[in-house]
């Protein structure tokens, strides 16, 4: 059976760091309305990301030798939590910071490390992840995008879809086929760092129903990559991607996506001095579950600090967390619909409507619920 997650305290020494971050965010975001904050880690603002970098808050866990702050994962937890709860527009640097830089640190050559990682820490290299393809969906092993070896390195052809914020990014780490056919499944896949400014790369933003363009389709037509575009070992792409998931799924991203709504709702309930049994109960249920998730997320952080790779536990927390994030939306919608006389502000309804629409993606990004639950089931020892 899977190792259980036990309570750990967040180090008290980080309280002053939290205060610093909070003050920065209060200043930066004073005029950002909740409906904008609800974009959370889907909202991109390159200058905001650079301001974080100026303060040394990108690459927090990266060694100082490579431009990072050399801090531990609890520091990163505190920073992430403050950013997410505030609904800061972190999307530009988020993936580079969370998983690309750590990936390069783990699998990269010395040259790759010293080229990419300091740039990430300075907010000069934003990364996206190229996984899904138009016909592969969740079935990553059926990937058809291909990098063929040639005299100059690799020739890349194919396309990727649902690539988050690619249009703000400098690089993509793409999972591509370097040998074999789709029928070979996981064998023959490799990870490539693709410079998105190269000739032959086209980025087409996909507008979502809320009118935003977080997603992209990225086309590669005879894109000539250098030899050193390969990151890690040729043919080991699948294993590398799976190791990356522990980073992707371990943070508090899967707790606070609906926080802008929850906070605004509570503000208006407080202002209207509305306290009835149903309201008290709903708020208590939501805060209770949020606290439990926070506890679980801290416990996963402790595993990272201990040098473990808690991929299955992180998936479990993610699945439970997205469920919670969607519950917040559903329950507040229900609460409002139960009280047609409540004078909700237009901004509250706007924030709710945005999340009602886009909340369905919470259980898509980073792996659909069915895929994730299959991973967890195997991790639990079902066979």
């Amino acid at each position, binding site marked *: 059976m899977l190792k259980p997650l036990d309570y750990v305290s967040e180090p008290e020494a980080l309280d002053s760091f939290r205060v610093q971050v909070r003050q920065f965010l209060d200043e930066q975001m004073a005029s950002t309305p909740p409906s904008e904050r609800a974009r959370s880690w889907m909202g991109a603002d390159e200058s905001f990301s650079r301001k974080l970098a100026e303060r040394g808050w990108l690459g927090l866990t990266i060694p100082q030798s490579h431009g990072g702050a050399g801090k531990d994962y609890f520091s990163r937890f505190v920073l992430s939590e403050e950013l997410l709860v505030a609904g800061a527009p972190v999307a530009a640097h988020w993936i580079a910071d969370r998983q690309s830089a750590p990936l390069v640190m783990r699998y990269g050559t010395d040259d790759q490390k010293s080229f990419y990682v300091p740039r990430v820490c300075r907010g000069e290299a934003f990364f996206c992840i190229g996984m899904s393809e138009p016909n592969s969906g969740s079935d990553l092993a059926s990937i058809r995008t291909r990098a063929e070896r040639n005299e100059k390195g690799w020739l890349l052809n194919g396309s990727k879809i649902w690539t988050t914020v690619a249009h703000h990014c400098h690089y993509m780490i793409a999972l591509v086929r370097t040998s074999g056919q789709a029928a070979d499944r996981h064998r023959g896949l490799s990870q490539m760092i693709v410079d998105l400014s190269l000739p032959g790369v086209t980025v087409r933003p996909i507008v979502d129903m809320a009118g935003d363009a977080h997603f992209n389709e990225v086309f590669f037509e005879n894109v000539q990559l250098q030899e050193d575009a390969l990151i890690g070992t040729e043919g080991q792409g699948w294993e590398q991607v799976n190791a990356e998931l522990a980073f992707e799924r371990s943070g508090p991203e899967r707790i606070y996506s609906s926080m802008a709504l929850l906070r605004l709702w509570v503000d208006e309930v407080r202002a209207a001095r509305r306290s009835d049994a149903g309201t008290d109960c709903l708020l208590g249920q939501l805060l209770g579950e949020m606290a439990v998730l926070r506890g679980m997320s801290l416990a996963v952080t402790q595993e990272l600090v201990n040098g473990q790779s808690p991929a299955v536990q992180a998936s479990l927390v993610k699945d439970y967390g997205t469920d919670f994030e969607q519950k917040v939306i559903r329950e507040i919608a229900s609460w409002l619909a139960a009280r047609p006389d409540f004078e909700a502000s237009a901004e509250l309804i706007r924030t709710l409507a945005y999340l009602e629409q886009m909340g369905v993606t919470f259980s898509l990004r980073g792996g*659909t619920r069915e895929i994730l639950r299959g991973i967890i089931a195997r991790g639990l020892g079902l066979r």
Partner: protein
Amino acid sequence: MQNELFDTMDRQLAEICTPGVIREIEAGGDSHRLWGSIADSGFADLMLSEQAGGAGLGWTDAWSVLFAAGRHAVVVPFGSTLFARAVLEQMGQPVSADKSMAVSGFGHIDSQGRLVAQSVNAVAVADELLVQAGETVYQIATSSPFCTLERTGGPACLDANVVVTQPDPIGNLPVGTIASGLGLVLAIQLAGVADRVLSMTLNYANERQQFGKSIGRFQAVQQQITEMSERVYAMRMASQIGARSVNWQPCSLQAALAKSQTSACAARVASIAHAVHGAIGVTQEYDLQIYTRKLYEWARAGGGEQYWAAQIGRSALESQQELLDFTREKMFGGSPPAS
């Protein structure tokens, strides 16, 4: 109940209320062409008396056209106009043959004497607004200088908060009359749009291939779509139970049931549809979102599951009747109230 009325309306809307037209109107384009075609069809006069140029039908027949309207996510306030016209006639007010009307049953007069109505469905593309506050009923042209709208909802949403300075009452109706009627309109539309979302999801699940087979063959997908279909069937039944009145006046507990049960199912239907469709479903260019957004909006508009459930529950507790008898008499049996 999919009869000639339904077929005619459904066929007409398939031509004129296409996803393209809806996108245009929701993006701020002109809605009068669509409204004009619908108004010309005369379906919005279904519950007007024959003397007033209508068909003199009741909710049981209106169900067919409202269900069709729901299936096509009709963006203009067709359903509310259908009901509002019947209300106006009953109140002895003139009925305009071409105006579209948004409706709210939950208005109130604020401390400054202004009429306030929250999140009125589709009011941004309505010509007029009919609001009940307590017993008093108000009618206002949305273009009136006394009327201001503040849009609520997402970017493509046509709902708004309305504030009317110097509101003029047109008469009185029993408390809750307009709320019941609008609730029932929305309930039937919800059942219709849910039916559409189910068909789209079934088609997609059969067409989309993953891991070498159609996703509809995966057990987890089958379990979810089954759950979805149960709710869609239940929504249809709830809306039909609600629409048993043969005249313009809804039976209040049956309408409450209809709005409560359809609203209760709506969010789950939407979320399963999106879970099955994956990322493609949330894109602007794919049609699913046009219909699922209506599931959310109509479920919230005019009072949701819990509001209407509480009306039923309170009535049941007060009645002292045995529960099956209460259910049979108040939800199924009896003749509709005399008009």
